[in-house]
């Protein structure tokens, strides 16, 4: 788990932490059932208050991305919904990539859509 926070940012610290962990879960960088750094340890590591990290983890739990086990810590959720969201995330990235490259190569939106259709029915 890698997290870099900016104290100067307008984005609240807990939100920065949440976004970065979320991105790493959705990209598959953090895998299912992988233990996350504990709330209190993370507060120490990032030099933020415990309430801040508690809030970030609480939000991630509410979004169904992680689960907490009393006395053992927090883990990445590994159920179907997570996998589906990871796929959706990958689809978004691939489509963005296709759109960027297509535009660079001078394709129209229609041509790009045709290509996608071909692949989809492949």
């Amino acid at each position, binding site marked *: 788990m890698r997290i870099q926070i900016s*104290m100067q940012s307008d984005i609240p610290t807990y939100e920065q932490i949440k976004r970065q962990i979320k991105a790493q879960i959705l990209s598959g960088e953090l895998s299912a059932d992988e233990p996350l750094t*504990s709330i*209190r*340890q993370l*507060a*120490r590591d990032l*030099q*933020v*208050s*415990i*309430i801040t990290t508690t809030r970030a983890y609480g939000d991630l739990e509410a979004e169904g991305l992680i689960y907490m086990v009393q006395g053992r810590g927090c883990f990445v959720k590994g159920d179907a919904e997570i996998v589906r969201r990871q796929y959706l995330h990958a689809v978004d990235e691939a489509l963005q990539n296709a759109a960027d490259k297509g535009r660079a190569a001078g394709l129209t939106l229609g041509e790009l859509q045709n290509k996608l259709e071909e692949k989809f029915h492949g």
Partner: protein
Amino acid sequence: MGNAIEIHNLCKEYRGFALKNISFSVPEGLCCGFVGPNGAGKTTVLKAMVGMILRSSGEICLLGKSNDDVKVKEDIGIMFDQPYFQESWTPLDIERGIKLFYHNWNGSEYRKYLSRFELDPKKKFKDFSRGMKMKLAMAVHLSHNARLLLLDEPTGGLDPASRDEFIDIMREYLVQEGRTILFSTHIVSDLEHIADLIAYISQGSLLFCGEKEELTASYCMVRGGKLPEEKRKFAIGLREYDSGYECLMELAHIGGLPLDAVTERATIDDVIVHMERKKKYA
């Protein structure tokens, strides 16, 4: 999660100074910064908490027990301005002297901290620098597994590097569940990097106790050329000078200020400085 600290209507009267109905609580596992100007009563509250002075009235509960209960003191680490150790004692003498009072004293842990904090076990207490003395006191509290630390300006008089080192020791202390700190400070960066809650006391009364962000969230700083007469009553700690004015204002009142007014987020310092200025010139 219960409260590690619960204070109800604490009063203490002295000639010329009084603590007035102080009530606040700190949930177990969190870190609370205690702020307020010199002479506001921070040290008096801390002393009343550990029974070093007798309160006139009110109730104090620490770790779920009344603070009059002697047993509770084993689980508390206290540190005032300077640790109270015999000047001529070495860290090893200190261990011999105080381990009798703590049933869960852990000698090997103590020696581990001495070497980690680079404290010579045979050097006399009076020959340590201020930063070293503070670290020694922390080594003692960590070695009897204190669950609650009450620290009076632990970072006062330390250089920035020693201060950072000390704050990191506090952070490390908090990693284990169920540990709580109440510490007084004048240094806002201490609060920014470690405090969950802030208790703000002024002239013997508690003005605020709550989450750190709440203290600043409802205010903003206003600067401008001329403050309209109808907004004057909302200005907190107003400072006027030839070319303009500066004050703190509740967010709710900034609507309708002239267009030249600049508003920005208030920091903890801004809030305290302006609140105090308001009192002084009120």
